[in-house]
Structure formats: C-alpha cells, structure tokens
C-alpha cells in the first residue's frame, strides 16, 4: 500500500506548565485519528522519535523568558511553514509575565538562594513579539476542542473560526444566568475572549480572564461595574493581572488601578 506523504507536525515548548501541549494528549478520542493524518515529527512529550524540519505545522507553547529561548524561537520559525502559538503563555506571556510589572531580580531573590545564577529576561513575552505567528489559540490552557478544530481546519484548508467576542456570548448560549447580574459576583467575562465555553460562570464563579482580552474590551467600564459591586483598587489590579497579565488591555487597566 503506497503511503501518501503526511504533513508533519511539531510541538515546541518554552516557559510554560506543559498544559497546552498536554491538551493534545488529552484528545483521547481524536489522538489516533490525528496520528493517522499527520506525521508527528517533533513532540517530545509524546515521542522520542524526532525528525528534522521543516515542519508543515508547528505548535508553540510557552513564553520567551531567556536569551537562549529568544534565539531558539527564530530557529523554530525558520523550519516551520505554519506556526501557531497555543495558550496564554505563547500569546500573552502567561502567568510568568507577572514579572513584567516589577524588577525580575527582586522576584529571583525571593525564590532562589543564589539568584546570581538565574539567567532570565526581565520580561516574559509572547511568541508574536519575536517572530511572525500565523495563528494564535488563546487560553490557560487552550481548549482541546479548539486544538482539534485547528488541526481539522489546517488539514482541510479551512479558515479556523475562533470567535474573539466576549465570554458572555458563550455563557448566554449555555443558558447560565449572569453571575454578576444575578449574584453580584464580579466577572471578567464581558472583556474576556471567548473559547472556554463560559466555564467559570457555569460553576457560579466569575470569569477570571484566562483567555485574555476580547476583541474590543471596555475594561474601564467593567472596572466601574466591579467597583459598584464592592471591588477595591487592589482587587482590580489583581483581577487584570493574572494569566494574561502581559496582554496590553489588561496590563493598561491594571496600571490604572495601581496608581489610584
């Protein structure tokens, strides 16, 4: 049986928790189908078989936090036909971008006995700050359905439909009564990028923004709503400064409340 040449897939990791690439292994129902359609050419977490590039599709997890990684991402870009950044680290710098608000050596001193050995950059930055990125999948972590959707779209030449509207649309479709309106629970849903399926409100908690800012986030208006619900300035700083602290609209809004 002549085997047609399958497109190659590579997965690379930068500073991250591994969760986004693990999402691929969590696609239990689709994993073997994926393996049948693509050649997994570089996916260390899954296989010790490593093929050299160029790769047809490269998924990049994690943010750039070291000088070495800032070099490595360029190498990866060079051998990747299509490069997709997956997850909050790769698209916004991730939780480790919390360092961006302060002096990284202060953080290092808290954690490490010998901080002089730490080789790290002052800021944690998304992949797109370093190389051209063909597509971004948001989320901390990405939703595995979107990952499978991405592969399906890519294999078939379809434009991947990822709504950049608010979480509220998903929440309302799901039929969850708004936690902010019905319970007074502060929620970042109205300024947060859809994609999670409005998970947190379905568990009666406010969205904490793990998919980052939506397409036209009115963070100032939402901050005013939060304030009316009793949130303080520090609450707002912390709310906008979590897993997408490095995303510009969230960073700006957090700074507004830091100054007050």
């Amino acid at each position, binding site marked *: 049986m002549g085997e047609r040449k399958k497109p190659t897939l590579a997965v690379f990791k930068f500073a991250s928790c591994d969760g986004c690439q693990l999402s691929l292994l969590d696609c239990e129902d*689709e994993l073997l*189908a*994926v393996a*049948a*359609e693509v050649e997994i050419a570089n996916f260390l977490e899954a296989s010790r078989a490593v093929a050299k590039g160029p790769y047809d599709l490269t998924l990049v997890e994690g943010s750039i936090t070291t000088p070495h990684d800032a070099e490595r991402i360029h190498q990866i870009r060079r051998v990747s036909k299509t490069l997709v950044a997956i997850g909050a680290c790769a698209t916004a710098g991730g939780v480790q971008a919390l360092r961006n608000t302060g002096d990284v050596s202060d953080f290092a001193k808290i954690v490490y006995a010998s901080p002089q050995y730490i080789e790290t950059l002052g800021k944690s930055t998304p992949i797109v700050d370093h190389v051209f990125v063909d597509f971004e999948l948001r989320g901390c972590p990405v939703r595995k359905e979107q990952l*499978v*959707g991405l*592969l*399906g779209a890519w*294999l*078939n030449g*379809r434009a991947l*439909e990822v*709504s*950049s*509207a*608010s979480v*509220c*649309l998903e929440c*309302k*479709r*799901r*039929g*969850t*009564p*708004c*936690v*902010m*309106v*019905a*319970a*007074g629970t502060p*929620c970042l*849903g*109205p*300024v947060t990028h859809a994609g999670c399926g409005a998970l947190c409100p379905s568990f*009666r908690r406010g969205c904490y923004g793990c998919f980052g800012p*939506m*397409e*036209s986030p*009115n963070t*100032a*208006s*939402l901050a*005013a*709503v939060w304030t009316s619900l009793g949130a303080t300035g520090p609450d707002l700083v912390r709310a906008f400064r979590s897993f997408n602290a490095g995303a510009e609209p969230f960073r700006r809004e957090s700074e507004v409340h830091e100054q007050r």
Partner: protein
Amino acid sequence: METAPPGIRYVLGDPGLPRLIEAVRGAGYRVAGPKVRDGALCYEELDPAEALPRGIRDEQGPGRYRLKSGHDASLFAQAVGPQSWKRYLSPPEQRLFVARKDGSGLRIEPEAADASRWAFVGVRPCDLAAIRLRDKVFLDGASADPAYRAVRKGILVVAVQCTAPAGTCFCLSMGTGPRAAGGFDLLLTEIGEGGPLLVEAGTSEGEAILRTVPRSEAAPGDLAEAERRMERAERSMGRSLETAGLAELLLRRSESPRWEEIAGRCLACGNCTMACPTCFCTTVEDISDLTGSTAERWRRWDSCFTLAFSYIHGGSVRRAVPARYRQWMTHKLATWTAQFGESGCVGCGRCITWCPAGIDLTEEARALREADGAAPSPRT
C-alpha cells in the same frame, strides 16, 4: 393554531395547575416552565413530579436581578427571567446538516427535526409578542426556516398574564402587556396568593385540554379580582418608553454624540442581544472530521456587537462600538418596523436587567429624544 371563540373563563382550584400540566403532558407534550437555577428563574423542562416554584419574587433593575423567596405561595408574582423561549424555538446551537463526500460526489443530509412537542408553561405577554415577532422572521417571509417551523408548529402555549411587573418592565409602552391579547392556547391569571387561577382557552386545542381538568366557571368576583390585578400591574410598570416618532427620532439622530457616550459604558459583550427574546441573529460554522470526508454546519446565536458580525473581505463594517450599539438599538426600535411592520422591542426589560453595565434602553431613548429638542417625556 386554531383560534377558539372568546372562551368562558374558569377558575382552577389550588392543585389545579399540576392537574392542568398533567393534562398537557397527557396530550403528548414535553413541558417547560420556570425553575429556580443559579439564582434566577430559568425556563427548563419540568419533570412530572416537579412543581412550579412558589413564593418567588424578583427584584430587577439595570444590571441587577435578585430572587427573593418565602413571601407567600404565589406562582407567578414575578416578571421574566434571564432566558426566553427562543432557546426552544431557535436553539443556541443547532446542526443544520451533515455533508458526506463519496468519491467526487456530495451528499447533504438536512438535520432531522426533533419530534418533541413542547408545552411552554408561564409564557408572559411580552414573550407572546416575541414569539409572534420571531414567526414573522422565520415563517412569514418569502422563505421559511425549516428547523424553526418544525419546533414552532408543535408548541402549546400556556400563557400567564403579568400581575407583578419588574423594575425593568415596559410592556405597557410597547403595547404587548401586561394583558395577553392572543397567541396562547391557554391563558392563566393568578387571582390569589397561591390560590385560584383564572384560566381561559385561546384555541380549540387549549379548550380540549381545559375540558379534561376540574374547573369551575369564574364568578364575577374572580373576574373583578383579575381586572383589579391587571390594572395594578399597568400602574406598576418599572419603566416606560415613549414610542411616538421613536423610529424617526433614532434615524434622525444617527450621528448623535450620545452613541459615543453610550459606548463609554457599553461592554460590547452582546448580553443584551442574547437576552432579547426577539433578537434572531445567528452565524454558522462549518466543521469537518480530520479527513474532511464528513462535514457539518452548525448555526449559533450571534450578536451584532461582535466584530465578525459585519465582516466583509477587508474588514468589519461596524468597527467602533458606537456603531454597534447604534445598530442594535436602531434595528430594534426603528428599522425593525420597516422590515416587519412593528417594533422589534416587546418591552420585556431583559436587555436592561442583564446588561452588566446596566445600560437602559429606555433611558438612552429618552436622552436621544431630549437632545433632539423634544420635550422630555415624564418618567414613571
């Protein structure tokens, strides 16, 4: 739905409603009605053993909704909840068809309609109007939507007149409530705190069901009580909207600075459009399996507040939020009339209550009117 002659009004005694629902179920319907979930009254399927919640009252204001319980044993002493019956008539997510490739050929299998016949219990007059408006969109034009038609033709509407409007209600202004004018199979009016319900049939099917439950003909006192309650409801509307010349006003004020001002508060989150019982916009997504041999198209509720909504090759038409809010409000209150012969707003107040930023459509209309130089209309 066949309209029955103006019916005799009856009184159902206390366990009357469960008996009525049982009869509805007996006629082959799945029953959906109000249920308390996550702090709100949601319209969900009722189990046979399940009773409607009693003694629940609601407090509604811009961006605020709270349920209070334990007042009395009333069944319907609240206004509408966050959801509307559009969940059933136009599901939030719906597969339209499956496409299969065989060789170079293509087979399209339209989604088979769900055979369920639904009975909606507790439909408020504003929502009756909303269903009528949806019919105009999906049934009455040159084309009819097969999926909508399939659900719509099977529903039985057990409506209830509103005796306790909420702070965001303005159905009186829109001429849709609190009295029900039609579009129901059965119509209830609560005439005591957890006690008797006045009931009348609006269709022969409703009448047939009514005939099977214990009932007594309403006494003049019952009718007077119902009337007293309806009058009280009309007096206790939380909001009002001056509709005279409103459509022209909105079109005239399309460049008003007020739109910018609203956009300062508007989150462009789309909650208003999702909560609105008449908003009908949808988008579709085409998906496939990894090999591309089987594909599906899904239809989902969409919102004119998203950038993708007005996307044409090269960019979105309504990029700025003022334009998006203007589109929504102008469509609802002005251009809808040109499209479908009446306003797209039924005065249910959901867009006000469920706007996290508490933007009040009636207030914005008033502000636009004031800026237009017209005399400010009195507030209720």
